[in-house]
């Protein structure tokens, strides 16, 4: 096949028109362009949506009595967010889980004589949605970023899977899809037991973590774990002095994980003093 110079320029001209003006030409042809830009905005905000300056939790572990109290929270999250189960700790993906006092607050427990009940207590762990998140600072593509409401978000479509954020996060809050979460195990069982079509599943090779149920907040629902926690997890706007979460924190004794690193976690643990 060969084309002469004139044919080449003609082809190039047509290509340029389609390339540069493609969208507008298409809109003019379908008659949709004007209507969509002047009458209805492309995205609308749900008036019921919860807004704030800095979302956070006050977690009162004293209110979590039985293992079932914890599992309820974890299940609520896992089911909604299509968390895969790979069946081994190496490839594990987790957004919310529990661990001992010693592991949750490793810098304060060395060789310490302390309250027995506290030492034996299990703590709920999740992304801290830090004010100064190290993960956001290191991400080379802004796939993880901080929203104006304080949520540290993760864009699984932009993430390149370099795992710099996992090296940077001091709280081990991030998981990587070492395997395809949409796949099946050797016995043909899907890694996502029951898929929730309302929330996207992830692809192989990206990092993910708790996103503070941004999708629920947008329609006026509480984060799933907080909703089923019987008041053990108080969600709210830390930036609002009149919010319930602020009142809980200000009226009790709370601690945060690794505060010495300056990331300013937005998850507070109520240890005592709350009636």
């Amino acid at each position, binding site marked *: 096949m060969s084309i002469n110079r004139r044919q080449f320029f003609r082809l190039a001209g047509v290509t340029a028109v389609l390339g540069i003006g493609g969208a507008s030409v298409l809109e003019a042809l379908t008659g949709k362009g004007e209507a969509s830009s002047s009458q209805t905005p492309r995205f609308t905000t749900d008036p019921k949506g919860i807004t704030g300056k800095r979302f956070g939790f006050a977690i009162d572990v004293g209110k979590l009595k039985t293992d079932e109290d914890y599992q309820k929270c974890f299940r609520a999250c896992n089911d909604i967010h299509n968390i895969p189960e*790979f069946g081994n*700790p*190496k*490839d*594990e*993906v*987790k957004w919310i889980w529990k*661990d001992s006092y*010693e*592991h*949750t607050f*490793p*810098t304060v427990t*060395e060789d310490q004589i302390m309250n027995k009940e506290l030492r034996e207590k299990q703590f709920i762990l999740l992304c801290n949605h830090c004010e100064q998140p*190290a993960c956001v*600072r*290191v*991400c*080379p*593509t*802004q*796939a993880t970023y901080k929203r104006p409401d304080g949520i540290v978000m993760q864009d699984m479509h*932009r*993430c*390149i*899977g*370099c*795992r*710099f954020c*996992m*090296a*940077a*996060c*001091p*709280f*081990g809050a991030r*998981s*990587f*899809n*070492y*395997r*395809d979460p949409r796949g099946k195990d050797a016995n043909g069982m899907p890694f996502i037991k029951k898929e929730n079509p309302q929330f996207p599943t992830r*692809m*192989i*090779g*990206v*990092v993910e973590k708790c996103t503070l149920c941004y999708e629920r907040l947008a329609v006026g629902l509480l984060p799933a774990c907080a909703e089923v926690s019987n008041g053990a997890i108080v969600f709210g706007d830390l930036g609002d002095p009149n919010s319930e979460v602020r009142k809980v924190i200000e009226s009790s004794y709370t601690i945060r994980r*690794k505060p010495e*690193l*300056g*990331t300013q976690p937005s998850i507070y643990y109520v240890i005592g003093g709350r009636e």
Partner: protein
Amino acid sequence: MLEKALIGGKRYWLWIGALLVIIGVAMTQYLRQFSYGLGITGLSRDVSWGLYIGQFTFLVGVAASAVMLVIPYYLHDFKKFGKIVILGEFLAVSAVTMCVLFIFVDMGQPMRIMNVVLHPTPNSIMFWDFIVLTGYLILNIVIGWTTLHADKKGVHPPQWVKPLIYLSVPWAVSIHTVTAFLYSGVPGRHFWLTAIMAARFLASAFAGGPALLIILALLVRKLSKFDPGYEPIQALGKIVTYAMFANVFFLGLEIFTAFYSNIPGHMAPIRYLYTGFEGHGKLVSIMWTSSILAVLSLTILVFPALRRNENILVVACVSMFISLWIDKGFGLIVGGFVPNMFEGVTEYWPTAPETMITIGVWAIGFLVLTVLYKVAIAVREEGGYHE
């Protein structure tokens, strides 16, 4: 000039063929990783970087070491390095190529690599690493090729290449400094959170890189008619000695600070690497191998009489190279992840496919190096050189 790489004896083609076979086998393993995911490696939620990123870090050092030839030759007019500067520059090209490939094979979504360019993020050190490595690769290709081409024609290199050569000096320092910042800038990883990281990286680079160059120069003499000369190799030997002492000194500083301050978090990774921690000690034997090889190499190098014997010198260089490879290409990365963020221990060891892919990337690096060295040697063998 590249056509010179197409003319070679039986031994040359056997070597090229062997490298291609290794690359081919590694490629099949990479395709497996591509479809199965990085779960095929020994990496985990707790140890999320391993052999690949370790090799990347180590090779950035090898690349930076070209500057140890450039500085004496171009800034101090040390003429004896004239004929072998090209070996350093082409080694840098090969090393940076491997760096890029190790990053590539480590990525969960390699097809999205251009996101780093599409969404440039100056607050990310990785963004800067991308820039300095790309720049360094281009600098060394342009400088190496242009000066060699001038040598071939027996003329002075063009004037415009001089500023690039001067630029390549701080640029070499920058690649390893920025790479060190990847680690020393993250909170919560005690083993990495140290101001001396970049200095330590440079010291180990200026020891390991020139040590490899000595080995390569001796190989070149053995396998070709081009003799890099006795004195340049001895001069490199001195550089290696000083740099390795600095490197060991810096490691000593780390150990002092961690143990005299008695801060548990700072001591834990060092304990894990050298004595085992809470019953876990997978790396203890190789870390001690590294230490013993370091002492062996320094013992040889510190005595001029031993160093002057090239057969003994090469033993020192091989020991040192292995020592630094273990220390930086493996221990440094794993030590950052053990203990984990909960002061628990998840151990790491590379799997067979992971090891094979790693060997494959090295084979690609050696292939690039062989082709470039073949061209450089051919030019030298034809007497092409101009001071």
